[in-house]
């Protein structure tokens, strides 16, 4: 079932959660709503679900007006951040709940309910837990139950509100893969809210990035990562490493010649750590900065180097693959030349972005 979001606005008191948000989600898509806290992504999800009502705008589910419809009638499944399992019911009863509360006309028989519940528990690999209580399960297991419960009533739309953020990193990764597989199997239109860009980029077909109640960019994971539309998006979709990653070299540029519009006085350049080239010797004609090596983090698949530009003392983070690192054999304290392989420039308004390819000088 497709979802059309038209001009949705929502205020909480004096706080604007959503401001004229519009987008279309195709049937069968897995869309991630990505953004920092306060960006409005959860509010948008809850409005789609019918758990909040918008101040303005409308929601259409499969072409039909759903804005005033109550959440119990929209045919959606909702998975909460903290599971919201019914703690006084067994796992079986939790999953069966949606089936049991249906109006008598549509309600399946006891045998049918039992069959469906078992089918779902098997899908989430928790069939032996049917008689236990949520209290006895781990966080990851509880979330799987929550998923099974939401799917039991064959929703046309599946909505997940930061479903994995309360879980350990490893469990998070597992469930992420899980979710993708289930989606591929069931083809339910799915909307996932998350603040974790790695999660969004890995799982979704389409990513919508929100900030301060507005949509900053919508596109495939590759599109938004490689062609960020604004500094915010660029900054937010940082490196996939879970380390702090202050990852940009900020180079203030004066007016340059070449094919840059002269109207731009000063720009800011954004470079990813892995887009930096390091060398002990400066190749002919290559413009570069000199930096000293402060610290090297060599554990893991890539090597991160903390550098400091000698000229202005500014820190720079670079990332090399192991082979290149071993070639260079750098140690802390040494000096090295640094230049970007590709650089993205934003002017002060942050709006326009200019891409300079290989060999972009400084």
């Amino acid at each position: 079932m497709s979802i059309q979001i038209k001009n949705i606005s929502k205020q909480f008191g004096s706080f604007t959660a959503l401001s004229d948000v519009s987008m279309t989600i195709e049937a069968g898509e897995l869309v991630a709503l990505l953004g920092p806290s306060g960006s409005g992504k959860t509010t948008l999800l809850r409005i789609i679900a019918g758990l909040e009502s918008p101040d303005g705008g409308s929601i259409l589910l499969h072409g039909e007006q759903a804005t005033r419809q109550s959440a119990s009638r929209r045919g959606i499944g909702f998975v909460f951040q903290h599971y919201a399992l019914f703690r006084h019911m067994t796992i079986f009863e939790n999953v069966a709940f949606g089936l049991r509360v249906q109006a008598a006309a549509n309600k399946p028989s006891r045998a049918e309910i039992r069959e469906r519940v078992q089918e779902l528990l098997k899908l989430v690999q928790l069939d032996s837990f049917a008689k236990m209580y949520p209290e006895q399960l781990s966080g990851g297991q509880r979330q799987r139950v929550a998923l099974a419960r939401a799917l039991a009533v064959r929703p046309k739309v599946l909505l997940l509100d930061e479903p994995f953020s309360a879980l350990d990193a490893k469990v998070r990764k597992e469930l992420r893969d899980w979710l993708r597989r289930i989606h591929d199997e069931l083809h339910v239109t799915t909307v996932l809210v998350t603040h974790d860009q790695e999660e969004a980029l890995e799982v979704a077909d389409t990513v919508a990035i929100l900030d301060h109640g507005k949509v900053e960019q919508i596109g495939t994971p590759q599109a938004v990562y490689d062609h960020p539309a604004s500094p915010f998006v660029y900054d937010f979709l940082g490196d996939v490493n879970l380390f702090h990653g202050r990852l940009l070299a900020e180079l203030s540029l004066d007016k340059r010649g070449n094919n840059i519009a002269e109207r731009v006085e000063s720009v800011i350049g954004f470079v990813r750590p892995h887009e930096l080239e390091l060398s002990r010797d400066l190749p002919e004609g290559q413009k570069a900065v000199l930096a000293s090596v402060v610290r090297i983090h060599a554990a893991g698949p890539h090597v991160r180097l903390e550098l400091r530009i000698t000229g202005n003392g500014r820190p720079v983070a670079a990332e090399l693959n192991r082979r290149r690192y071993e070639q260079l054999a750098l140690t802390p304290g040494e000096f090295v030349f640094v230049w970007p392989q590709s650089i993205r420039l934003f002017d002060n308004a942050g709006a326009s972005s200019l891409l300079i390819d290989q060999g972009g000088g400084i």
Partner: protein
Amino acid sequence: MAIVQGNQIRKPGRRWSFVTKSSPLPGFRLSLGFTMVYLTVIVLIPLVATLLHAARGGFGVFLHTVTAPRVLASYRVTLGSSAAAALLSAIFGMLLAWVLARYTFPGKRILDALVDLPFALPTAVAGISLTALYAEHGWIGRYLEPHGIHVAFTPLGIVLAMSFVGFPFVVRSVQPVLEDLDPAMEEAAASLGANAWQRTTRIILPIALPALLTGTALAFARAAGEYGSVIFIAGNMPMKTEITALLIVTKLEEYDYAGAAAIAGAMLALSFTIMLVVNLLQWWIQRREGRRV
């Protein structure tokens, strides 16, 4: 915990095996010692003295005393009224807890504070005041009497007074559970298609039930032992409106210490049973949900 000395392993002496986990914090001996002495003097010794006295003369004498007709009648009055009061407390307590936990309205804070009034008001004051209200010419009594509803000096009055002191237990047991109820659970139920009635009966009430039971048990316990609020409005006619607590006092005034002790023993048995029931309820909840009610 073994101590390695040289290449020998010695177990430490049994000095502090009482403490299962050693703690860096000071004051264990002092605080525990004081607590135990206090409890022994204030609770244990008097309790044991009473139980022993009750048992003096053997079980037969005890049984005879506690099953005398007047005593039995007092049980009937007391337990019957307590049960009725507990039921009333459950109903009104539930109502109040629901309203306080889930709605906002003008005067809510005052209502909330006033729920504690029966805790704060001396029982004697409650007693004379309720009597004044429900007596024949009292502010409320004057409307009830003509309809043949006699409250003062009847078992109905006893139930009333017991409900007065009992209902706060229900409110204060249920209210936190309703307040702590995760709204996400109700939202989840709604998203799964449950309407308001289904959400109430399948989610909220079952979760609140253990707290309701606990509160009702406590209201019952308080009602059964209540003295000051009841004796003014009860009328205190033996065999008809005499509560067991009053019977104890009467026996003491008659210097029948043995009789008083025996009945006190019976009342203690009831108290302990209720405590046991409440603890079992708590344990059941703990097991099912991993937390107290």
